[in-house]
């Protein structure tokens, strides 16, 4: 359970988030949508300690996050940033670094860490490339390796900033399954998403952000019933039922 109350945050004196309150329940996928520059990434970054917090509360299971040391925080919250390096190491080494927060000085990975990393790689179907250097992999496989690393971190809250970037459509759907699995395991999964149809069909609840504030919150149904998406993106969004399946489509506002 991740709770953010009346958060004002940004970088230095530049305040980007204004009075943002969010409650992320366990076992659910929460999507954050909104136009470019609305503060979605800043919201995730302020949770992980990468943005400056001016006022407001950030709580994990009722405990204030700012009192945590970085390693304690990482045991509670895993974070997959939007912009990532191409590390010069093998997939296995990188996934193993997901265990970093569990190590004391001098940091040596143990049998248990290796086993957890192996399972994370299995989940992301990376066994075949586990000894390959990341600089030799495609963008999609690299993204999968990053997600495996976040899984190996075994934190109850997982924040993903545009996790579907670089993934082809089959891998996007596979990632959605994995996010559902993680939620089914009781984790709070938070994802910043640009693909609205994907966000609507995947997430249990959605936050629509606009200019640093929350414009609307609710289940996809509730968001669709309101006018927030129309207002913020200047589009029309519709739900189409065909047989068992539900599709979400959008078009430019007329």
């Amino acid at each position: 359970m991740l709770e953010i109350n009346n958060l004002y945050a940004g970088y230095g004196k530049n305040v980007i988030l204004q009075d943002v309150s969010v409650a992320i329940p366990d076992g659910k996928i929460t999507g954050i949508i909104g136009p470019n520059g609305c503060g979605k990434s800043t919201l995730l970054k302020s949770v992980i300690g990468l943005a400056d917090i001016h006022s407001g509360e950030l709580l994990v299971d009722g405990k204030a996050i700012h009192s945590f040391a970085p390693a304690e925080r990482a045991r509670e919250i895993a974070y997959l940033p939007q912009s990532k390096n191409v590390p010069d190491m093998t997939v296995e080494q990188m996934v193993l670094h997901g265990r970093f927060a569990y190590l004391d000085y001098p940091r040596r990975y143990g049998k248990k860490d290796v086993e957890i990393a192996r399972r994370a790689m299995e989940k992301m179907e990376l066994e075949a490339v586990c000894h390959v250097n990341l600089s030799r992999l495609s963008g999609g496989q690299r993204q999968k390796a990053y997600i495996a690393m976040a899984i190996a971190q075994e934190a109850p809250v997982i924040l993903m900033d545009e996790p579907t970037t670089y993934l082809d459509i089959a891998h996007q759907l596979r990632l959605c399954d994995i996010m559902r699995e993680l939620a089914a395991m009781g984790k709070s999964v938070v994802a910043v998403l640009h693909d609205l149809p994907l966000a609507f069909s995947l997430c249990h609840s959605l936050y629509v952000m606009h200019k640093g504030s929350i414009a609307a919150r609710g289940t996809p149904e509730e968001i669709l019933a309101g006018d927030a998406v129309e207002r913020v993106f200047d589009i029309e969004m519709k739900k189409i039922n065909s047989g068992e399946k539900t599709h979400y489509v959008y078009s430019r506002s007329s």
Partner: protein
Amino acid sequence: MVLSAGLVLLVASAVVSICTGSSDITICQLIRCLVRPENAGVELAVLKYVRLPRTLACVFAGAALGVSGAIMQSVLANKLASPGIIGVNAGAGLGITLCCAFGAASGFVYSLSAFIGSVVAVLMITAAAYKTKASRTTVILGGVAVNAVLNAFSEAISVLNNDAALMSVDFRVGGFSSVSYIKLIPAMAIIALCLILLMTLMNDLEVLTMGDETARGLGMNVRRTKNLLLILGALMAGAAVSFSGLLGFIGLVVPNFVRRLFPGNAKLTVAGSAVFGSIFLTFSDILARVIFAPFELPVGIIMAFVGGPVFIVLLVKGKGGHTYA
């Protein structure tokens, strides 16, 4: 594999270094000295007070500067980084110039002032970066600026005080002709200690190369780790420079060369930089003593002559192969 071959090569070059000089000592004589020190005469004295400290100086300075360069390049995510970039050389140079200007030129004081100069310069740059939360590029640019200021001070003192200018020339070129135990032993202790500490921080270094945001997400205190690594690297380089003079080239070239030997392995790159830095410096120093014997060239000049072309060949042949986004 490559690393153990490197170690063998290192031992070989150290033995050659011990045996080479204005009076050559054969391997037989060397072994005899080691087995029966009481029977050895002049050779033992030469070994003990000239060759051994000189070889130790080469090995330790080479390892320290190589590793320091590897750390700087990883932490600052820039292959052009070297100990010099965060003020080690400029600080040491100013320390020496000041020391000479005030007339204190005994071996130990001389080394100590170089070491203090470099450490102060590095602390200034890292503290400023820490305070302002500067990015890696800003650290490098700030280092360039501080280097310019420190060098300007050194130049100004040298112009106003001729003694300082004359006496600090040897130090600026770098070389081992005046190495003695009193300079060497404290510096060697610092280098060894830093090396041991660094070897326990290799996982941290690797996580750091994934970028600040990822490292933070994994639970690292990024700024503290970066500064710790930079300061350990700078201490080593400062200790090395305090007895070897300003050998800048080695910290830049050796890690770049070693990285090609061990792609994708930060730990081996650091260990390899120690071994190959030692080999490079020891070998260059042997050449420096032999080429124009009985005259001796400063080792810094030899390193640039040998290392420069070799490195260019490597760059042309290697074609990169790795991209850093």
